[in-house]
């Protein structure tokens, strides 16, 4: 009778040990993974602290991070992705960030020498128009017929001046 009881207790003990082991392993597995909310705030902090990541935002779902927003160039896009990939608890990264289009090239302004020559050609047929060029700015004085104004302005606008200061008296 005692023997039977002993073996029953032993089996019970064994069963508890197995259950405990399963509990322990699963608890460890859970603690190994980082909660989405914690990961979210860690990434948000990282973005705030990293100037290259300005303009990027992240959304976390089951350890998968989706990046969106705008990066200034491809290098920045890759940097952002790799930075997030390297963070603890990130399973994978979906990089949906876009690269901003390059800013337009600055406007080319013609040199004064070229402008002076161009202005002389353009005003040749308008005897009462006087034009001066200074630092890219064409200043028009004198007189012109209204019907000639558009022709003159069209010519001058092709010369790549900085601006045209039209002080002409229009007859």
């Amino acid at each position, binding site marked *: 009778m005692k023997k039977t009881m002993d073996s029953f207790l032993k089996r019970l003990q064994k069963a508890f040990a197995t259950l405990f082991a399963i509990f322990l392993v699963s608890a460890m597995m859970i603690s190994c993974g980082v909660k989405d909310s914690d990961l979210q705030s860690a990434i948000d902090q990282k973005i705030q602290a990293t100037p290259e990541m300005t303009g990027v935002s992240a959304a976390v779902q089951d350890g998968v991070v989706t990046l969106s927003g705008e990066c200034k160039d491809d290098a920045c896009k890759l940097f952002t992705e790799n930075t997030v990939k390297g963070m603890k608890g990130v399973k994978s990264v979906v990089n949906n960030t876009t690269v901003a289009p390059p800013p*337009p090239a*600055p*406007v080319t302004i013609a040199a004064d020498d070229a402008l002076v*020559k*161009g202005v*002389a*050609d*353009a005003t*040749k047929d308008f005897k009462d128009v006087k034009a001066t060029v200074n630092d890219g700015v064409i200043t028009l004085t004198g007189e012109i017929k*209204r019907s000639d*104004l*558009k*022709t003159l*302005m*069209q*010519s001058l*606008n*092709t*010369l*790549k*001046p*900085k*601006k*045209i*200061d*039209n002080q*002409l008296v*229009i007859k």
Partner: protein
Amino acid sequence: MALQEKYKQLIDTATSSGVGNLQVREQDNVLYIDGEAPSGAIKDQLWDIYNTIDPDYRAGDLVMNINVAGIAPGSQLKVATKSSNLNIRKGPGTDQPIVGKAGHDEMVTLLSKTNDQWWLIRNAKGEEGYVYTQYLAQ
């Protein structure tokens, strides 16, 4: 951005009428609009809108460099002077000697485009030289 608002109608018309290589840039309080109009009529229309927004082009806040696209060497162009002959010159500039004349409304052949102001042409008599493009029309 304020200037783009002021000239919005102009920019919108340029976009909708198919102006190619359209660039709209603002720099030091001047708006620069560059592009290639599909026809001389569209270019004229844009200039008329410009004149409506800024009567007599007084404000000095826009430089609009719109050329007419698709005029290739070999094209026939009409001399669009008011009434006088158009000087054909040895080189691109009014300081260059006159080598021929093209009459008002005469057709000439484009040989090459030197720059936005001067094109090399040949007239009906076979005289070749440079003329001021402002006086050529399609």
